[in-house]
């Protein structure tokens, strides 16, 4: 049972969000690995083999999260890992990164998109939805 515990990788340069989400996800029974930068996350992918990745959008630059998600999608080993992007960037100021439709999400190669802070319930529901089909083999 313990070995079947799905692993979720959290990538965020905001330590509070890492801690908060780690807490929420661990309570829900997931194994959680944290990274504070895209490079660090990419380096540990092979070792951690996450089942799902939750990444912040704006880290080193405005759209680090998208670049990160693209890199994962281009890697044959990891391309099927579901990715959730979270961001504090609002839709105001003409700086809208939020996808409007499922097609937008596909175009951005992301499985879900949330604005921070995400309510634990919604996040967990989305994770369950994304991980559902691959549960106990």
């Amino acid at each position: 049972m313990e070995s079947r515990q799905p692993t979720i990788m959290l990538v965020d340069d905001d330590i509070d969000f890492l801690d908060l989400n780690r807490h929420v996800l661990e309570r829900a029974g997931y194994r959680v690995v944290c990274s504070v930068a895209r490079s660090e996350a990419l380096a540990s992918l092979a070792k951690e083999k996450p089942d799902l990745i939750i990444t912040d959008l704006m880290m080193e630059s405005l759209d680090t999260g998208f670049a990160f998600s693209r890199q994962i999608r281009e890697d044959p080993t990891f391309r099927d890992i579901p990715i959730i992007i979270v961001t504090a960037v609002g839709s105001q100021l003409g700086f809208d990164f939020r996808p409007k439709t499922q097609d937008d999400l596909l175009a951005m190669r992301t499985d879900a998109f949330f604005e921070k802070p995400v309510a634990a319930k919604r996040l967990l529901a989305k994770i369950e939805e994304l991980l559902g089909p691959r549960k106990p083999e």
Partner: protein
Amino acid sequence: MNSSGLRILVVDDELGMREGCRKILTSEGYDVEVAEDGVAGLDLFKERGNFAVALIDLKMPRMGGIELIEHLRALDEDVVIFVITAYATIDTAVEATRRGAYGYIPKPFTPDELLLPVRNGLDRRTLSIEAKRLREERERRLLELAVERSKSSTIISCMTDGVLVINRDRQIVLQNAAATRILPDCAAAPLPAPMERLGCTGLQALMEDALTSGPGPMIASREVALDRCTYMVNASPVREPTGEVSGAVVVLRDITALKKLEVAKSMFISMVAHEVKSPLAAIEGQLMAVLSGAAKDSPGQEKDMIERSLLRARTLRTMVSDLLNLTAMETGNFVIKRSPLDLRKVAAEAVESHRERAETKHIELILAKEEGDADGLVLADRDSMFMVFANLIDNAVKYTPEHGRVNVRIEQEGICVRVSVRDDGIGMTPEEKDSAFDEFFRAKNTYTVHVPGTGLGLTLVKRLVDMHQGKISVQSEPGKGSTFTISLPTAE
């Protein structure tokens, strides 16, 4: 005709003739002067000038009448010259007229035979002077017009904005140098050239708008991108007095720099939005977790979350006040009051205010004074200097791991006071060092992610130092620490 003040010169070698003329003419109100031969007559004319009429005898000693006529004509083209001669022949009359005489009066003559031609001659003189005045005025006007036209064309050709004029047949009839530079495609074409030659549909559409505009003043504007530059293009119709549109004037202004500024501004606003929303979202998320009881079971977790929310709230408040300070500096509302200031004293206060925090991390925080070190007397604003020290010491303590060391030193260096804040903390990579003073820049790594900060502290420090005509520099190496050095001119 009022004859008073009109001056008449009589040149005759016969005294009787001279005096006879004087008598007749004076009685009519003319001002008469006489000379007994050509030389005397010429001297008098040169000396007194401004004669309206000259009555000249042909046969005189020293200088004859014909020669004198030539001289007078050269001196004054308006003077009316009569030849008075007893030997009136057609030949001499023709010769005299050819040399510039108006007519001849045969001797002897009655008073009326003298006065009538003189009056006619004067009338003619008035007319010719008036005609000359009109001619001169016309020439002056023409010159003014030419100058005006060359002025206008100089102005148009020297304008930094591109100017194009098209007629109603959609042909370019004028383009200035700037327009040629902006639209090199239409430069080679001889004018008039078809509008299509511009090869820019946006521009053509705008011209079409101006040409087909209804009555009333109308200016069509749009931004047009050409060859990596952006232009604000204004097109206004040229109207006949009847109101009919006969063409359009198009002005292209390069607004590339403004556009860049606009992008930079919205980038900045987006960054501010992100930097403000992130801590707010963190605070909200943590409070949500506490309220939902999600952290109830792990001991200390709730308190920890609330404490961290508080820390984020405080950082956010600092950031807003830093932002307001930076904005005030940009708008010139940030006033610095310079007075003689002992930097060592200000540094000591800043060091003391960070003492407690340094001690909790077991960091040795020292304001060093070595042999020969100056007190650092400068002309500066106390609050600004405190802000500079506080920010630098705060950073040094933040980015130095436990049991490290932060050293503040003040030295005299020539005409400057040099302040340095050195730590043996985590240091910066060359790239991080280059961006250290940029707004919202924060080095991102596993250490700094745990350090709260606004990314505005060093920006503020640099602006404050700049405002004091000082210099700030940084030496840093990853893992070996950073040294920030400020140079300020010594107080006189």
